[in-house]
């Protein structure tokens, strides 16, 4: 069936080229049927890529090692779930997933918006066509997943660290995020090409950007949890280039989601918004390039390949063409209004944007610095954790504070007197929190103490907003308090869903500060029966087990855990020796206290033949709030994403009022 897969990819490439060329011609010449034909080509490209994907998936599930890709990424002994995840575990498969999601998103975005923004969509189609042409070309000519060979008896297997349940969701979510950012990019470029720089491209892409942003956010958290459990170094984020690759477009998209509100409310920042979308998309391409090219050393980079130059060339073309278009359309992008006051909600959003962008560019510099230093001095100089941590504090802490300030300031301008009244409660809560924490000894880490104080401030403002809003809704006629609360959210999902997302970021900040600024570590080499202590915990090494699993030999050291004399049961830490892959992985032991959010984290660093084990143990306060933040983040995103029937009616009505038919 490899021939069918190859043919399907060639058909996808042909359809993508057609969508690009015919779409551009239709838009330029104003030809209706040609425009619809180009739109159909995108839909057909999705169907064709779906067939190619089905062929690859079928080969994986059948362990058809005549497919070079299948033999390189799986083995007979690999569990089925990981065999499926091999689809995106290797270079060619992940590029195929990119193309599949891209053509699917393109077809859906065009279909959903062609009724009310038809004249804009015409220009969006060739942009989608251009991006999918690039990926289809890579798959056909550079990284074909359907290469065949004489089938070996067994495959080479999968990198052990990828054999983790989080790998079933983490990479696809990141790809959904990366690819999802193509939609706002395509609409922004379409708006620039057509000169339709009104608000419609923003409205059409807002939810797509939110979907991509949510997927990137959740994908990163799952990746962090994977690193925490699987990599076994005691942390969850190492400022690794590939981790940063996903963080950068997320930061740019976060900035865009805030600044887009300023354009919608005040008609300002039109150039800035277009630039942020271009930046987010370029960074998503850069992220894919980093992950897939093997150009940087990373624990997450599992491939070395030849696609790097192609990606760099494409990124270069995207950036150059996009900036040229922005420059060309500058007169149409001028804002009719100006910032009225430095103390206003739009000003707070602007400061937020500048800080997010500064953090994003600082990380970018940290990622490219080793490449530049190697090119210039012949030696790759890596900027370490201190560099990133320093700038995270410099930009991150003010960002945290702004999350509390922004929602309580009026649009346009606010008086100082009004601010003093508005902020008295949140400031009081923050002050009391700071003093109490200082008394409890949290002053050992100043950034940690500041983070907690600011977090208390933000929580107070969010609570205040919900309480006041619910009270106002009740006064406006809601029959009950729950009714008033749900009416408050339903009437302004973006605002109150946004607050829930802010609450998630606060949880994340508390979790990160607690687990990094206030953690403790202890190390000991123990023989059976010996004990070690860390904080209130006492661990006794009992025995060493060896057992055979489906594709690995598992060695586990069993520890009895007590805290303040209370028995907490046992904990296992050890190593897996993967037979086919001929690799060994650390398998950490984690005991979570769901009440306090604290983790006891045990690594069996070295296991000697006589059964002596060298243990490294961490106590990580509040670390579980990071994972809880993921759930709250998802909830907030869903509230914000939920379709607003009134807004849809307003848009359709507006289109009708102008005189353009609202449907096909």
């Amino acid at each position: 069936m490899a021939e069918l897969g190859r043919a399907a990819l060639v058909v996808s490439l042909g359809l993508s080229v057609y969508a690009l060329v015919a779409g551009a011609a239709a838009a330029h010449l104003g030809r209706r049927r040609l425009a619809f034909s180009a739109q159909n080509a995108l839909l057909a490209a999705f169907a064709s890529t779906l067939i190619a994907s089905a062929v690859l998936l079928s080969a994986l599930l059948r362990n058809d090692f005549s497919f070079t890709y299948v033999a390189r990424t799986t083995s007979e002994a690999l569990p089925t779930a990981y065999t499926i995840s091999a689809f995106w575990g290797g270079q060619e498969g992940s590029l195929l997933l990119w193309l599949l999601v891209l053509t699917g998103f393109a077809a859906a975005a065009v279909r959903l918006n062609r009724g009310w923004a038809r004249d804009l969509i015409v220009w969006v189609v060739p942009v989608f066509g251009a991006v999918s042409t690039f990926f289809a070309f890579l798959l056909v000519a550079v990284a074909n997943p359907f290469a065949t060979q004489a089938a070996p008896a067994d495959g080479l297997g999968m990198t052990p660290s990828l054999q983790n349940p989080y790998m079933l969701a983490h990479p696809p979510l990141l790809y959904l995020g990366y690819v999802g950012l193509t939609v706002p990019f395509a609409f922004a470029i379409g708006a620039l090409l057509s000169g339709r720089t009104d608000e419609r491209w923003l409205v059409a892409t807002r939810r797509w950007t939110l979907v991509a942003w949510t997927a990137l956010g959740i994908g990163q958290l799952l990746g962090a949890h994977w690193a925490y459990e699987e990599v076994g170094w005691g942390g969850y984020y190492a400022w690794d280039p590939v981790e940063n690759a996903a963080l950068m477009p997320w930061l740019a998209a976060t900035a865009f989601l805030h600044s887009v509100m300023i354009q919608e409310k005040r008609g300002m920042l039109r150039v800035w918004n277009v630039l942020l979308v271009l930046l987010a998309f370029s960074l998503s391409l850069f992220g894919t390039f980093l992950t897939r090219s093997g150009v940087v050393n990373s624990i997450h980079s599992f491939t070395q390949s030849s696609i790097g130059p192609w990606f760099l060339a494409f990124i270069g073309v995207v950036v150059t063409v996009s900036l040229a278009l922005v420059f060309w359309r500058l007169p149409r992008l001028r804002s009719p209004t100006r910032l009225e006051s430095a103390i206003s909600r739009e000003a707070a959003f602007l400061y937020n944007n500048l800080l997010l962008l500064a953090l994003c560019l600082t990380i970018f510099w940290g990622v490219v610095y080793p490449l530049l230093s190697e090119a210039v001095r012949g030696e790759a100089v890596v900027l370490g954790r201190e560099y990133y941590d320093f700038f995270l504090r410099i930009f991150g802490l003010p960002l945290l504070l702004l999350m509390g300030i922004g929602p309580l300031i009026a649009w346009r301008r606010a008086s100082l007197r009004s601010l003093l009244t508005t902020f008295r409660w949140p400031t009081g809560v923050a002050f009391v929190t700071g003093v109490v924490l200082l008394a409890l000894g949290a002053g050992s880490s100043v950034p940690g103490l500041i983070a907690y104080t600011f977090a208390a401030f933000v929580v107070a403002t969010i609570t205040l907003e919900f309480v006041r809003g619910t009270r106002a809704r009740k006064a406006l006629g809601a029959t009950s308090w729950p009714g008033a609360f749900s009416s408050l959210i339903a009437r302004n999902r973006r605002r109150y869903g946004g607050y829930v997302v802010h609450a998630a970021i606060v949880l994340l900040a508390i979790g990160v500060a607690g687990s990094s600024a206030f953690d403790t570590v202890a190390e000991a080499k123990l023989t059976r029966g010996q004990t070690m202590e860390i904080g209130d915990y006492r661990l006794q090494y009992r025995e060493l087990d060896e057992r055979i699993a489906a594709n690995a030999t598992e060695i586990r050291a069993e520890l009895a855990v007590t805290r303040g004399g209370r028995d907490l049961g046992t904990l296992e830490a050890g190593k897996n020796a993967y037979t086919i892959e001929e690799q060994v992985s650390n398998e950490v032991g984690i005991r979570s206290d769901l009440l306090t959010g604290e983790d006891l984290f045990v690594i069996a660093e070295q296991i000697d033949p006589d059964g002596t084990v060298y243990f490294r143990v961490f106590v990580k306060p509040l670390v579980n709030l990071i994972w809880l933040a993921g759930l709250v983040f998802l909830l907030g995103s869903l509230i914000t994403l939920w379709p607003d029937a009134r807004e849809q009616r307003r848009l359709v009505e507006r289109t009708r009022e102008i005189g353009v038919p609202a449907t096909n």
Partner: protein
Amino acid sequence: MTLALALAALLAVASVVVVALPFLRDPEPVSDALDELDAAERHRLELFETRDRALAALKELEFDHRTGTVSDDDYRALVGPLRREAAGALQALERDGATRGVDGIEEEGRPTGERIS
């Protein structure tokens, strides 16, 4: 191999049919021109955007005042300009509508679309 090639050929043919569908469905259209906004319609769209923006801002200000997020003093300072902005946008739309009412007669020959003005 043969089956795979036959399926591949089928896929290629089906793709061509899907792409050609707009031409097959409507081989001899009265007009093949795209239904695009002209300059007057784009201007009107901008007026609608200004109107909706001003009305939404006014609504949000009223609610924020009611919740106490915006003080009485700030409310008094902000509500006037916002009301003027909304009224200005509505008047501009009315003027534009009146003009279009006259000009619209000349535009009846438009190829597609049900004009409402």
